[in-house]
């Protein structure tokens, strides 16, 4: 019997650690979109944004807030909330589920290693946070620098320049 197996193998020029990381990240994103429970958790901040963004009381600019509206002040809180939710419940629920189902054990029998598995999780989860918080009603239609410009509170009028809010969004 020959020493090597006769499977048709796909050889790569060099071992590409980034290739596996990319695959893990994309797979995680797909799973997040497909899993109703994960999607609900991600959609909560977005739903809150839509609700509060459509109440005039919250979008009126106030002198007491230095020309910003309550909504402007609320947005960073929501972003922090979304990040915290993801870090404390999102990531841990996913990983605990993987452990319970033996997914992590199976991964241990492969050459992938824990660093890439965790990094893939982190990138995928952060990407989801970015998507859900950048979809605030104010950012539609998206400006050229979408989504980053929308992450900072921004007053409409009277415009008072704030660091980081100036970029292309201020023209709208």
């Amino acid at each position, binding site marked *: *019997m*020959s*020493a*090597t*197996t*006769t*499977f*048709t*193998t*796909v*050889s*790569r020029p060099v*071992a590409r650690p980034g*290739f*596996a990381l*990319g*695959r*893990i990240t994309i*797979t995680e994103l*797909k*799973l997040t979109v*497909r*899993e109703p429970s994960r999607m609900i958790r991600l959609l909560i901040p977005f739903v809150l944004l839509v609700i509060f963004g459509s109440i005039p009381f919250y979008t009126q600019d106030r002198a007491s807030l230095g020309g910003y509206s309550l909504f402007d002040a609320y947005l960073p809180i929501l972003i922090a909330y979304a990040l915290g939710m993801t870090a404390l419940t999102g990531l841990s629920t996913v990983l605990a*589920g*993987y452990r319970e*189902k*033996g*997914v992590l*054990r*199976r991964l*241990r*029998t*492969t*050459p*992938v290693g824990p660093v890439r598995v965790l990094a893939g999780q982190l990138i995928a989860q952060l990407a989801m946070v970015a998507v859900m918080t950048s979809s605030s009603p104010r950012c539609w239609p998206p400006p050229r620098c979408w989504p980053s410009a929308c992450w900072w509170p921004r007053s409409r009028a009277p415009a008072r320049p704030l660091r980081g809010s100036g970029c292309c969004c201020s023209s709208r």
Partner: protein
Amino acid sequence: MPAVIEVQGLHKSYGATVAVDDVSLTVDEGEIFGILGRNGAGKTTTVECVEGLRRPDRGTISVLGLDPRQDRAKLTQVVGAQLQDSQLPDQLRVDEALALYSSFYAKPADWRELMDMLGLAEKAGTRFGKLSGGQKQRVSIALALVGSPRVAVLDELTTGLDPQARRDTWELIKNVRARGVTIVLVTHFMEEAERLCDRVAVIDHGRVVAIDSPAQLAEQAEEQQRIQFRPSVPFDDELLTSLPDVTSVTRRGDVVLVTGTSNALNAVTSVLARNQIVARQLRVEQASLEDAFVSLTSRGN
């Protein structure tokens, strides 16, 4: 043939519970090696040490010349493992799972070809949670093979499968071996070991009690043969008890039960033929691996 896996004096305990007491075995290249034992006999712990998932308390293990703990990076490239009760995320599609796992290896097998070979091609777009037990098991085998391993360790492969799915899986394992992969099969099904394995190690209470081919093990167990038939005309027991190969004759209603040595069948049928008695519903039971297993594992109790 060179040895692929060598285990010497393996010992592993969890607290006060000794899972593996003293296991030594050698697996040769290209064979299907069965590890047989009752639940809790230490089968899974043994293979988990071989896979490098557990650190043995004592003993040495060499897999393709590698130490499972020290050379993990190299070992995982050449050993494929199918673990007991290891699932995948329910929402993951079959083709995505294979593409994902193949990306971990330096020289993966072509996963599309693997999918065809395992009969999963039409299920490629199905999510893992929607698959039947047999299909899940096939995905699991595919993942164990996707790295194009030289050794595949399959733990309780057919537990929970229906008889047809079990047979299909056996065929599959034979095909995999035909490709030159050495296979370690952990099982508690005698039939599975009897049909598939070239050699079997019987483990009981964390010790190897026998290593041999299934047929050899069965032969060691019992030299007896049990013959059962319904005679066409009544006859006297004396006719059969006078035969040197027959040890006993009993009757249950109109059914005659004869026990004797392995030559008893020949002797009985020729005597019956000479007396023009037709043996209807003739059944012969030979000592099986199961008998061997029971006698081997009941010694310590």
